């Protein structure tokens, strides 16, 4: 029967091609607009590391000004000081922990005539690689001994390895960074966490850094930093040492805690730590340490842009307009077939079968609108890419979840729009219709 209804629906759609085209276009435009904004929001609010996002915790310690909180209302600063990061690293209480910050270095290729260029750099610790599950093309990350021993080692991104070593296995070779030689220990494969959860302070949708070097080495040789730095009080005295000892925050600290017990213990450890520091005259504010897992942290930092949410809201309303449009047109169409419906009722079709038949027709229209809408959404995303340029290129890809969502949303919308017109059509009294014929 289903096939027969499909055929009837198809015939009916073909009978008024203009009206049908208008309906399909209305749904397609609505779906296109919605899916464009839903995709952007979906990617922005996506989980960048789903298999262990609930085991990775961002650490916030409230070392801020006693009179003014870092961010209203009563939020601790979004990064930690060097003093605290090093104390937590030394304690090593968590299963894994990593302090890291952003920087930029100059890489001098060895080849004759090749010009030096700047590379985005992350200063970090050994645990970074296993903790965030970086995929390696060659070699691996460095070990904790390298951190302690101030070894000048480096992990390259795939692109940099291609640029400098032509994509070969470069493990063991050396690269010159800011006038110093570093030994390559690993090359990571394509890795693109969206959002860039491990450092949302310096741009939640930036690409990962191009090279990774030991944090301790960067500090030891006073390599430049270029990430966000915030201070609430001047450092005592000038110079590198004074800056390191200051209350300026510029480091992101993550801990890997495998279960609720470890999480609880770690928070207790942090609170005990700041308690001790209070005794030394630091941490003048009331106790306010935070431990957020990846998704809690993304939410607290509001990584989804307001503009994206506003556009999402407006496009959902847009879909409502398109559906109202479709309801009106379907109603016109179904009531236009009153004679037809009356005849079928007179010949014995029940209301239920008529209902199913018309809902199938609406569903067909929805399917058409969905497929066309997918195409429009693709165009919409290309449009966003054209408008915003490189900044959004990681946000405008559709995956199969989005494709499925589009088609489902289209069919559901069409069925919803079809409910009232169908109900009206089924209420047609056969006698009245047959009389006028």
């Amino acid at each position, binding site marked *: 029967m289903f096939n027969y209804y499909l055929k009837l629906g198809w015939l009916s759609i073909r009978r008024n091609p203009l009206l049908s085209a208008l309906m399909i276009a209305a749904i397609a435009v609505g779906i296109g*607009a919605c899916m464009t904004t839903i995709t952007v929001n979906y990617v922005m609010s996506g989980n960048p590391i789903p298999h262990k996002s609930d085991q990775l915790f961002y650490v916030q310690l409230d070392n801020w000004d006693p009179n003014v909180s870092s961010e209203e209302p009563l939020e601790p600063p979004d990064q930690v000081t060097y003093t605290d990061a090093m104390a937590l690293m030394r304690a090593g209480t968590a299963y894994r922990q990593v302090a890291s910050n952003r920087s930029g*270095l100059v890489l001098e290729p060895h080849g004759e005539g090749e010009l*030096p260029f700047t590379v985005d750099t992350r200063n970090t610790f050994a645990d970074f690689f296993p903790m965030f599950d970086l995929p390696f093309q060659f070699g691996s990350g460095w070990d904790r001994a390298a951190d302690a021993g101030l070894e000048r080692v480096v992990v390259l991104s795939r692109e940099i390895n291609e640029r400098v070593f032509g994509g070969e296995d470069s493990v063991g070779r050396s690269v010159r960074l800011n006038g110093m030689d570093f030994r390559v220990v690993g090359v990571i494969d394509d890795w693109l966490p969206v959002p860039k959860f491990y450092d949302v302070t310096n741009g939640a949708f930036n690409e990962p850094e191009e090279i990774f070097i030991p944090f301790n080495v960067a500090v030891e040789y006073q390599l*430049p930093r270029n990430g966000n730095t915030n201070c609430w009080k001047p450092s005592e005295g000038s110079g590198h040492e004074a800056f390191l000892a200051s209350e300026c925050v510029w480091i992101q600290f993550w801990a890997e805690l495998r279960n609720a017990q470890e999480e609880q213990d770690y928070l207790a450890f942090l609170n005990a730590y700041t308690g001790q520091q209070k005794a030394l005259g630091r941490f003048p504010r009331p106790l306010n340490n935070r431990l957020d897992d990846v998704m809690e942290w993304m939410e607290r930092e509001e990584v989804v842009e307001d503009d994206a949410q506003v556009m999402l809201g407006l496009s959902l309303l*847009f879909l409502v*307009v*398109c559906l109202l449009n479709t309801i*009106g047109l379907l109603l016109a169409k179904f009531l236009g077939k009153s004679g037809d419906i009356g005849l079928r009722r007179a010949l014995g079709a029940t209301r239920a079968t008529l209902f199913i038949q018309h809902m199938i027709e609406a569903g067909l229209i929805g399917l058409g609108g969905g497929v066309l809408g997918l195409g429009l959404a693709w165009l919409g995303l290309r449009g*966003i890419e054209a408008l*915003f340029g490189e900044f959004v290129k990681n946000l405008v890809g559709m995956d199969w979840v989005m494709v499925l969502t589009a088609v489902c949303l289209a069919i559901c919308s069409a069925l919803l729009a079809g409910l009232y017109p169908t109900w009206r059509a089924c209420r047609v009294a056969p006698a009245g219709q047959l009389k006028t014929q």
Partner: protein
Amino acid sequence: MELGPIWRAMMRNKTGAVLIALQIAVTMAIMVNAISIMQERARVMARPSGVDEHNIFHILSVGFAEDFNERVTIEEDLDALRSLPGVVDAIQTNSVPLSGGGWSMGLQTEPGAEVDGTGVAVYFVDEHGLDAFGLNLLSGENFSATDVGLRDRTSTEWPGKTLVTRATAETLFPDDPMGALGKTVYINDDEPITITGIIEQMQAPWNGWDGVERVMLVPQHTLFGATRYLIRTQAGRRDELMPQVETLLAERNKGRIVRSMQTMDETRERSYLADGSMIKMLAFVIALLTLITALGIVGLASFSVNRRTKQIGTRRALGAPRGAILRYFMTENLMISLVGVLLGGALAVGLNMWMVEAFSLTRINAWLLPTAMLTLCLVGQLAVFGPARKAASVPPAVATRTV
């Protein structure tokens, strides 16, 4: 007029009319709020940065060689840049307005760690700063060459003089902003610094900051490893000088990289990329939405004309002129539109109240509502005109046919 009969006839079969009215209402709610957002973005984008934007470009120089002497390089670079024909002036600075990255400090009128400071953006310049940015000094005097000191990456000392914008003076000394000249303020809680001049206007690097007009110029050359040169050219010579400057800097010293050369116009465009794109997207949404609504009106009106062909024929046969038929459908549509826009006005205000709350957007302008109402009524009239004319052309003879 036949308002009563039209209304009553519509009420007998009101579903189509209700759908159109609802559609107009939601369209209006979206339209009004979208335009309101567009207006706000356009207002923000129109704020002047205070510098001579069309004739300025800037370029980054990153030293990396072990023997790279930043201090000497800067001195020589500036001499070379300033003597280029066509260059009005050039400086070395840490940031430029609208660039998004910069330095801010707290200034306070009383010393002490417990006193709240006013956040102010810092640009490090030398005595050429005013000229290179193209700033207007309202009172006081420019730095002299002897005022200009050096600053390395971790130094915390500040020179004794600063030039501030009028907005900074207004925040620090609300009672007498121009009296700020010669006053001592405190930086780093208790380091005194004297305001030796007041600049008319200049923006901070962050366009979304609420203190965007609060700026101070500090007479220091920065030795941070990476530095930015800002070059102001004679009108119309910018594009010709840019490649010259890039080559000049790259070849003067091989121990550094020059990159990210950008005109101020490009800096502005990048800075407001999101706002500009939002305006374009919203304009597109409004256009598309109006089209969809208009097509919906055409579709339903055509349908209702078709259904009423016989009645129309009858009216014509009884002596109604074509104009009367045309007027009937136009009036019917106007009634629907009016109901729609009134409902839409309420919806628009409701949606705006919610968005003000959730996304701290601005309230809609009062005049936006009547304008949108009028526009949508006009769109309705235009859309219904085609079907109405078709209705008017129904021949009276139709009344005599049975089907």
